[in-house]
Structures are given as C-alpha cells and as structure tokens.
C-alpha cells in the first residue's frame, strides 16, 4: 500500500486538488428554472471570506500605487491649474448663477411632475446623496468586468448601490468589504440594467458582450432604432434612478441566437476603460433633497423683485379668472349662455349692423380676419373660461374688463 501511494503520489495529489475544487464549485452554483445553472447573486459565507482575504492582500498595494501616481502627477497638475484659476473662478461663478436660475425653473417643473405622480400613485426616486470614490484595481480578467473602489462598508457603501460618473452610469456595487468595494460594470456579460431608448421609448436590458461592449438585448427588430439615439436608464431595476444617461446607439445587429430579435450595441457615455473617480449613489428619496430646495430658495432670492412681480401678476390673474363672469358656461345649455342672459346688469353690447356693408365689414368673403387690437394676451386671459372668437356681427365684448388693469384694485 505504501508503495502504491509513493508511486502514484503526484496523480493522487492532482486528483485530490481537482476534486476539492470541483466540490467547491458545486456549492457555488445552482440550477435555475430554465434548466441552466447560474451563480448565486450573493456569495456563500466561505466564498465571501476568500474574496475578503484576496482583497485584503491586493488592495493595499493597489492603493499605494494609485496614491503615489496621484501624488507625482498631482504636483505638476496643480501648478498648471493654478495659473488660470482666477479667470476660471469668475467664469464658474457666473455659470453657477445661471445654472441656479435654470435649476429653479426645472425644479418647479419637477415639483409639478411629482404632484401628478402622486395623483397616479407612482413615485419617482431622485438622487439624494452620493459618495465620491476612486477606482483602484480590476479583476485582472477580461471575462470579469469588475473593478474595485477605495471605499467600503465603513464609508457607508452597500450592495446594489448604483455607480455613476457625470457622463453616465458605470455599474453597481456587487460586494462590499470594510474599506473597499467590488463594482460590476455595465459591460460585463452577467450585468443587467433596465434601459429605454429616448426617442422611440423602446425598453430593453443592457448587458455586456465578449468584447466588453454594452448591448441591449431582448428587443424585437424595429426599423425606427437608428445609430445616435440616446439610451437612458428606465428605472425599473431598483438600482439606477430613471433618466440617467447610458450612452448612444452605435449600431444594430441581428441576434444570432434568436430570430426576429436584434442586439443594439451601445457606445457608453461613461469611459468604462478609463475610470478614475466615480460617484456612488448612497441614497435615493422620493422628494427633493434639502440642498435642492435650498438652491431653489437661493435662486428665488436671486431673482428678487422680478420673480415677486411675476408671481403677484400670476396670482392676480388666477383670482380674476375665478371672480369674473364667464362668457361661455360649459354646463349651461346654448340658450342659457351668459352672453345671451338678459338679467346681466352689464349686458354685452353688440355693434350695430352696418348700413352699407363694405370690404371692411367682418364676415365679408374677401376680407381677411383681423384680430382685435385689444385682445387679451395669453398671460392675462382667464384660463378656464375662454373668450369666444370674433364672429360676424359679434365683436369683442366692450364691457369685459382687462385683468391687468383691474388687478391692482382687486388684490
């Protein structure tokens, strides 16, 4: 027996190592409903421990290399940057002021959208808080498009948080360690993000191919999809908030595995191969963040008297619209319309019929219609009850007061 083991020692050790690793593989995969196998979305405790050890060994040298590279490059970069910093600062300040005003307008629109969403019992999530992180390493394999961040659970990162750059989405946090995190990029074969094409509103799932290009799968052949169309996040995957840029359509190819389906190859908006700094969305809320609301207040203050005057004018118009008698009552029958009401203390005066109609008479066949010079402007016109258009023999009512004139007297 001893001679057997000594004689076949090498093959036996090989067999033992292979069997041990195959058993290890078997506990990590599971059979899914379609009959195929897949990895568990969450690693077993033992596997997670191995990943933690490997990361603990590799991350410190990577971090050191990264910081030394930043330190050397940063010194020269800082000198170059400082040379034009004053002009840049002034330009940026102007840009901030302009963007604040624009943001205030957009926030108003978004608030209205939120109210409508509330009516429809659908609430959109907004980015509430982000955390900046540095990409320090990768998996080292082209079969696994993952990379590592220098922030981990100690800094508040959790699984399935979205990772973005100002250009577009990057991926999601797959595994979190105490001071680092593993991010699965959108161009990995196993990734999946719900996306929508901006113009055609076609939805699909984004994942990577062998070459590391993101592609949208599960789309029926559609002639409307053209290169250059923008791709946005659809918001249905519970990871990426809706409307974030993903990229643009690069080309459309036939799906080799499924007839009548196509693959939409996407050129990612974020530079996935040159990632340095990224943002991790650590929190999303159904309402605006305090910072957003603060910006809104700041821009309102910046607008000052102009904004107050517009607001006052709008308010007066609304009050006027409520109090003024309408010329057309949608609920009244045609013969009981306010225009025909004799009990009205200020009856509508009809212009007298012309004795000798000429080409200037309203309703003449060859006469072009000329609008009344004192027609109410869209801003001052009461919205719910509109003035009927001028018809032959019926001019604009002279007794209808102009809201702008009466507004200061009837606040």
């Amino acid at each position, binding site marked *: 027996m001893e001679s057997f083991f000594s004689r076949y020692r090498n093959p036996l*050790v*090989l067999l033992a190592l292979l069997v041990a690793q195959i058993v290890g*593989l078997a506990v990590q995969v599971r059979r899914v409903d379609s009959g195929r196998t897949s990895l568990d979305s969450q690693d077993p405790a033992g596997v997670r421990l191995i990943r933690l050890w490997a990361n603990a060994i590799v991350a410190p040298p990577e971090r050191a290399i990264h910081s030394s590279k930043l330190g050397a490059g940063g010194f020269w970069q800082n000198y170059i940057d400082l040379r034009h910093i004053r002009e840049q600062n002034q330009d940026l300040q102007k840009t901030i002021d302009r963007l604040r005003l624009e943001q205030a307008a957009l926030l108003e629109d978004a608030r209205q959208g939120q109210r409508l969403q509330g009516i429809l019992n659908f609430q959109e999530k907004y980015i509430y808080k982000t955390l900046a992180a540095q990409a320090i390493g990768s998996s080292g394999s082209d079969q696994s498009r993952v990379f590592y961040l220098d922030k981990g659970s100690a800094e508040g990162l959790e699984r399935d948080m979205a990772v973005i750059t100002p250009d577009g989405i990057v991926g999601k946090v797959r595994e979190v360690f105490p001071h680092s995190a593993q991010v699965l990029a959108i161009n990995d074969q196993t990734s999946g993000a719900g996306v929508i094409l901006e113009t055609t509103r076609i939805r699909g799932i984004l994942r990577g191919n062998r070459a590391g290009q993101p592609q949208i799968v599960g789309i029926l052949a559609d002639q409307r999809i053209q290169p250059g169309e923008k791709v946005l996040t659809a918001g249905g995957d519970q990871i990426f908030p809706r409307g974030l840029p993903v990229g643009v359509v690069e080309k459309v190819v036939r799906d080799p595995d499924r007839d009548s389906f196509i693959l939409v190859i996407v050129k990612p908006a974020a530079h996935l191969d*040159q990632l340095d700094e990224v943002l991790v969305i650590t929190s999303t809320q159904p309402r605006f963040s305090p910072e957003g609301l603060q910006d809104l207040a700041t821009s309102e203050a910046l607008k000052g008297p102009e904004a107050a005057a517009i607001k006052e004018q709008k308010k007066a118009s609304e009050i006027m619209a409520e109090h003024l008698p309408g010329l057309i009552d949608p609920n009244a029958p045609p013969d009981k319309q306010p225009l025909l009401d004799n009990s009205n203390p200020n009856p509508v005066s009809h212009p007298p019929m012309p004795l000798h109609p000429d080409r200037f008479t309203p309703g003449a066949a060859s006469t072009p219609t000329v609008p009344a010079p004192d027609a109410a402007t869209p801003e001052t016109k009461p919205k719910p009850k509109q003035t009927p258009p001028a018809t032959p023999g019926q001019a604009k009512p002279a007794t209808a007061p102009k809201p702008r004139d009466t507004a200061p007297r009837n606040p």
Partner: protein
Amino acid sequence: MPVLTANSRRDLEIRRFPLLVYALVPLIALVLQAWLPRLLRGYVWFDLPLVVTIYFALGLRSPIQGMFMGAGMGLFEDALTHHAIGVNGIAKTIAGFLAASVGVRIDVENHTIRVMLNFFISLLCSGIYLFIYRVLLGMELEWSWVVELIKAVGNSIIALVLFPLLDRVQIRE
C-alpha cells in the same frame, strides 16, 4: 567514475530561490495583473500569474509544488473576479502539474522551449477554463479563441523577458 542516476541528475538541476522570491514574485504578479488593466484601458492580453506558475513549476521540477502554486494563484485570481472560485484554480493546477512534469523530461534552459511551452500551456489553460465553465458548470459564456490566442502570444513574450530576469535571482551553489 561516478554515475548520475535520473534522480540525482534531477536534484542537481533543481533551482532554488530565496524565500522572499517565493513570496514576493507571485504576489507582485497578482497585484500587477489586477492593476495593469486599468492602465491598458481594459486590454488584458496576458496572464502574469500563469507565467509565474509555469516558471516556478519548470524550475522546481516538482509536480506537487507546481500544482499547489497553480491552485493558489488560480484561486486568488478567481477571488478577485465575480465568477465562481475554482475555475481558474483547476485550470492552473493542471498547468502547474503539466509544466513540472514536462520540466523533468526536457531541457528547460532553452529559451525557445520555455516560450513554446508557455504558449501551449496558456492555450490549454484557456481550453480548460472554457470546458469547466460551459460543460462542468453549464453556464453561458461568450468566447473568442482569437483573444485567447493573442493572450497566449502575450504570455510567451512576457516569459521571454521575465524568465531570464528570474533566473538571475536563483541560488547558485
């Protein structure tokens, strides 16, 4: 006249390295494998841990040591990916075993032989990886043999430069 038996000849040709080299070289290979793709914009046309495994397996001429080194390197690489741990481990275990087994029988001082050995073992490793993923695990994986061929060439070029450098740090008696 002293006659060298097969075992004694093998013992004479076994390379020995300082303990620090056994620890540092694999670690540096693993760190560089994880870090370099960021510099090279995602192009991973090499497998440094495999090259180092082949070098030590050839030099040590011990299949068991080669297997354990391959298994360790492979498992470490797997742990850095999001794939199942063990796929690379099995592939590199076999690579280490083969390299050490071949190293006993052929002249591993010849650079051409070492580079060719690197090329073929790299391709074999890719084939084992694909076999485990698709057949053993039954999982979907897009594959390109052209990329694997380029990777094997990349490994051979690295071996051409790295092996003479590592030869310099071996202990000479």
